[in-house]
């Protein structure tokens, strides 16, 4: 079976700033891949290129058989981008729930508006997903009445209800108070266990070590290390990786 995500020779410039430098990676189906690295290393940009929230400057993105060349314009390109977005669910650092909609409305919005799913069917699916993230009891609340952790769990349910093939997480716990991080990580573990392919940009080394099948370390727009978590945490090769892991270790004690 071919890898579900194939990124080849990806480049991204912001003006003259070269933030992604010729990156190629593959992600297999059901794989959980964590992207770590110092801030400014390009990990969020790489993730956002996958569903074209950032348009890549060059290179190819292929998600579940949909192949899109970066840096193009026009109707065909827009259609391909749309197809890729339907195959990817995204969870943001700032949750980005729609404040004018209740929790349930937030979750059914995508299926009803984008996929033209019947409302009743969307509600059933949404309730199932809200239940699995433990937020069904708040389905009629508005987002402003929820804690950060609850908002993020709803955001995960919202992405899952689109039935994506791949889930992208962009620092999902970075905006949370420390005591709320656990509940979100637990939900993510559950999603991983259910067999979802996941790409997670995170600073949570513990999560990476425990849940990831593979960890990619980014530095200055390049992948500087690609290893399974056990090897990475015991014998990092690159000095920058070593620095990251040492900092994590010192924080742990």
């Amino acid at each position, binding site marked *: 079976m071919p890898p579900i995500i194939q990124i080849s020779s990806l480049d991204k410039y912001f003006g003259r700033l070269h933030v992604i430098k010729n990156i190629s990676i593959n992600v297999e189906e059901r794989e959980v891949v964590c992207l770590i690295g110092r801030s400014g290393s390009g990990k969020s940009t790489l993730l956002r290129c996958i*569903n074209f*929230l950032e348009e890549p400057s060059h290179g190819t993105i292929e998600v579940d058989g949909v192949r899109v060349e970066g840096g193009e314009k026009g109707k065909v390109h827009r259609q391909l981008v*749309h197809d890729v*977005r*339907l195959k*990817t*669910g*995204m969870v*943001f650092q*700032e949750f*980005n*729930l*729609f*404040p*004018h909609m*209740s929790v349930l409305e937030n979750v059914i*919005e*995508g299926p009803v*508006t*984008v*996929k033209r799913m019947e409302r009743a069917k969307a509600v059933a699916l949404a309730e199932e997903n809200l239940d699995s993230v433990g937020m069904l009891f708040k389905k009629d609340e*508005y*987002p*402003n009445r929820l804690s950060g952790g609850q908002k993020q769990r709803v955001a995960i349910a*919202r*992405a899952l209800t*689109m039935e994506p093939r791949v889930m992208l997480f962009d620092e999902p716990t970075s905006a949370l108070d420390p005591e709320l991080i656990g509940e979100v990580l637990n939900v993510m573990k559950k999603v991983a266990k259910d067999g979802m392919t996941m790409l997670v940009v995170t600073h949570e080394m513990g999560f990476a070590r425990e849940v990831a099948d593979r960890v990619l370390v980014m530095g200055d727009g390049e992948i500087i290390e690609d290893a399974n978590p056990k090897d990475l945490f015991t014998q990092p090769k690159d000095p920058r990786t070593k620095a990251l892991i040492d900092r994590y270790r010192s924080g742990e004690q």
Partner: protein
Amino acid sequence: MNLFNKDTNGNKSQAELLYEAQQRKQNQFRRNVILSWVALLLFLIFLFSGIEIKSGDGVTTVSSWEFQVVIENNREVRKRIESTLLSLPFGFSNQGFDLKTIIVDGEFIRENIDFVAEGILQTIRISILSILFAVALALLAALGRLSANPFIYALSTFYVSLIRGTPLYLQIFFFFLALPQLNIVLTGLWAGVLALGLNYGAYMSETFRAGLSSVGKGQREAAMALGMTPGQTMRRIVLPQALRFAIPPMGNDFIAMTKDSALVSATGFVHELMWRAQKVGRAEFRNMEALIMAAIFYWIMTLLLTSVQSRVETRLARGDR
């Protein structure tokens, strides 16, 4: 620990007591404000009541002045007639004081109130037509203002600048008096609606623009990540939030427009409140009475609109971020 928990004795917690004290103070303030309002209103009514209080030569009298129709030399004339309400056998000696209030021609008001009141409907019609036109224009102008296309951006800013740079009064006359020279003849009503709509559209576009840019980038990104098209993102995610932001100032604009609709009377062909008040006031030289009538009608209308607006605002605040 919950600050609002009652302790085991069932006594109120300190926070609860503090909260109650604050509430009491607030309620007291509100009550006093209402009482003062009533007092001011009563004073105003008294000021126009025609009541005279005199005290002198050891007698105090309270009397009421009124205009009455009397026949004099075979002609009907309105004359001020005094009727004593109260006379007391004590008071200041010699000069004393004489307190007169303004005498309003009640007979004139009774005769003309129906005629002036008929203008309310026309005033409301102008306001509603104009506000609908203004909202549509304001939305287009605001979207144009956020457009990446230089021509559309220019069109929007040009319109706003031109309209805001010239008086509304001039614009009304332009549509009514200048356009006929180009063989475009508008009735007074449509000239007024066009001018008011264009004018308020220009001002409201700023409100809309602020509303649109109050919706964060993250909202658009979340919608896009779900696969929404730009149109769907605008309709389902951005506009509802922008409107919620823009509705309170829009309410203010609507109230202001209701009052500015009085300017349309200048065309002489739209028989709304102001026109009617001027007409009857001039005819019988009773401008004060006529304008007071119109003022009361305008005031009541804006009071009603304000209460509707505050109700809408509290509703909108419910699901807020």
